[in-house]
């Protein structure tokens, strides 16, 4: 009995009690995903009874697989298209805004900084409804891809600004001043010193915007026009109520893999980009220690 207690709660040993809680949580949260992914490889039509391994729901089935079903393929394409536009527009705008906000010391800087956080704290449904109203009634923007991109950019920018601004604040003004001192023009200092130092944050922004866009359901759904502008989450959501096949699981799996790949890529590039920057060494060592 004492040995069991010592294994679990020995103050001088490993914190095993915490480890048990952690692993329980990990299992709890990952099991549904694993099951969903597993049934995307099911050979039969069932999403709950295992009938053997196959890839038919990815591309094997000539009409119902993700690859061949036009609505699923369209949803995947629409998702990637929106993510691409969102990244291309939100990241440069967000970087510019972050640079401006960091320099802006006068009146108005504080309220604007606060407003930047607004999209993060507003319930998404409220935001979606209001965007729909102003787009349709005020700006006369046709629903569909344009409206969806604009809507996603609207809330994505906040995340970019927060990521880039925190990096800017930790970089401080001295590198830029040094560049100016050594003869670089304001634009030169930005291009030669600030942007290279910001590159990890900019890269992280791309990935975050990609993940936000791919995952977004509410805003994208409200601003969609018809079947042709459905994205993967919308397709999965509407599919749940109709007759479904494991192709839906396959579609979801593609999303999960895409998001995971993006995050993994972000981690690797971030690590590579920061390998020679001071002040980041500590964080890097921590990550390295975690891996070991």
């Amino acid at each position, binding site marked *: 009995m004492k040995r069991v207690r010592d294994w679990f709660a020995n103050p001088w040993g490993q914190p095993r009690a915490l480890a048990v809680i952690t692993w329980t949580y990990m299992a709890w949260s990952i099991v549904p995903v694993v099951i969903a992914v597993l049934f995307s490889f099911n050979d039969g039509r069932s999403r709950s009874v295992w009938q053997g391994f196959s890839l038919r729901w990815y591309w094997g089935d000539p009409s119902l697989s993700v690859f061949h079903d036009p609505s699923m393929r369209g949803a995947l394409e629409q998702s990637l298209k929106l993510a691409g536009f969102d990244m291309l527009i939100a990241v440069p705008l967000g970087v510019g805004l972050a640079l401006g906000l960091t320099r802006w010391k006068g009146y108005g800087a504080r309220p604007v900084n606060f407003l930047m956080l607004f999209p993060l704290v507003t319930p998404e449904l409220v935001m979606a409804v209001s965007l729909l109203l102003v787009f349709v009634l005020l700006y006369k923007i046709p629903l569909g891809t344009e409206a969806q991109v604009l809507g996603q950019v609207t809330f994505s920018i906040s995340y970019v600004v927060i990521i880039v601004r925190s990096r800017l604040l930790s970089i401080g003004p001295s590198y830029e*001043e040094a560049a*100016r*001192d*050594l003869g*670089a023009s304001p634009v*030169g200092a930005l291009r030669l010193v600030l942007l290279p130092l910001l590159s990890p944050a900019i890269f992280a922004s791309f990935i975050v915007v990609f993940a936000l866009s791919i995952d977004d359901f509410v805003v994208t759904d409200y601003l969609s026009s018809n079947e042709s502008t459905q994205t993967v989450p919308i397709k999965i959501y509407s599919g749940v109520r109709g007759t479904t096949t494991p192709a839906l699981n396959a579609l979801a799996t593609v999303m999960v893999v895409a998001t995971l790949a993006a995050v993994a890529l972000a981690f690797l590039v971030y690590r590579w980009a920061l390998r*020679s920057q*001071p002040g980041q060494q500590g964080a890097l060592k921590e990550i390295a220690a975690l891996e070991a």
Partner: protein
Amino acid sequence: MSKKTDGAIELVELRKEFGEVAAVDGIDLGIRAGEFFSLLGPSGCGKTTTLRLIAGFERPTAGKILLDGVDMAAVAPHRRKVNTVFQSYALFPHLDVFGNVAFGLRRQHVKREEVRRRVEAVLEAVQLGGYEKRKPAQLSGGQQQRVALARALVLEPSVLLLDEPLGALDAKLRKALQLELKGIQERFGITFVYVTHDQEEALTMSDRIAVMSGGRVEQVAAPAEMYEEPQTVFVADFLGVSNLMHVTAEGADAGACRARLGDFVLRAGNGDAAVSGSTRIVIRPERVRIEPYESMGDNRVPGMIERVVYLGSAEQLVVRLATGDVVQALFVNDGTPREFVQGTPVQVHLPVDALRVLPPPAAAVPEPEAKPLEPASDAAVQLGAG
């Protein structure tokens, strides 16, 4: 690299306000070409702001910054022929040592071969030859400091601005680099404007020092003069250890100032002998003489040894005078046997030629001799009154 003859700076009624606060409160300074000039003062005295104004990172609220006679106040920092060594070094972490040092040359579109030649020459001069491919993060603090110096020197500026460049280094390295910096300054003949709060650093390296306080210049002088002849209470107190005593001055008496310290009358041979009224006198600890209690003579005040502190190279005595004032005395450990014992009554001799009378506090600010330039004094009085 040839010696330079330009690089004279003149600050005229320079003023910088941040909101309501005047960080630099109308200062006038003349810095000669090729001079090692230090701005010395406690934190918040305006010395770094003054440096940033010269570099161009801050825009003056009023006044002029003349470099070799040309006003630069409205010139952008990248167009000024001055370079800065930052306290944090601010080496670009994404560039290697070569890239850092070549940065300024590349902005001037210098030819490739010449960039290489000049970078290698300057790295040799700061003893960092062979470190071209290292990243700043792979260098020690002292090496980073040298790269920062090389990065600025390679552009052959008229004036080099240094913002506490040794502040982040340990004491031993700091000492070594002090001498090295001074050597480089003499070899290149560049005007150095050096900001520091470390009085020893300023005394060791400078040709002249400006002591600053509250956004104003208290005194400009060579190190020896600054130490021996402080013009204000602030300078006397800030630079080295000083015994400051409140007295009532009674004007000149045979070339010295009569100063009443409690029941005793002292004569102060330094300072303005004509001062009268409530003011302070100052004497350095190493000039204080301790004599047997029975000894007689002028400028002697009885006291009692309160504390004896052995410092190794010297011995420090804290003596409480009969007037209640506490005086420190310092004796160099030169082998002379001294037997100071706590509680011993002694006579404290404050020699006439070592005792200095300071101007009364109210008069200290507009004192014309504390200002280096003639036309400034009137304006300074007005600013001081406003």
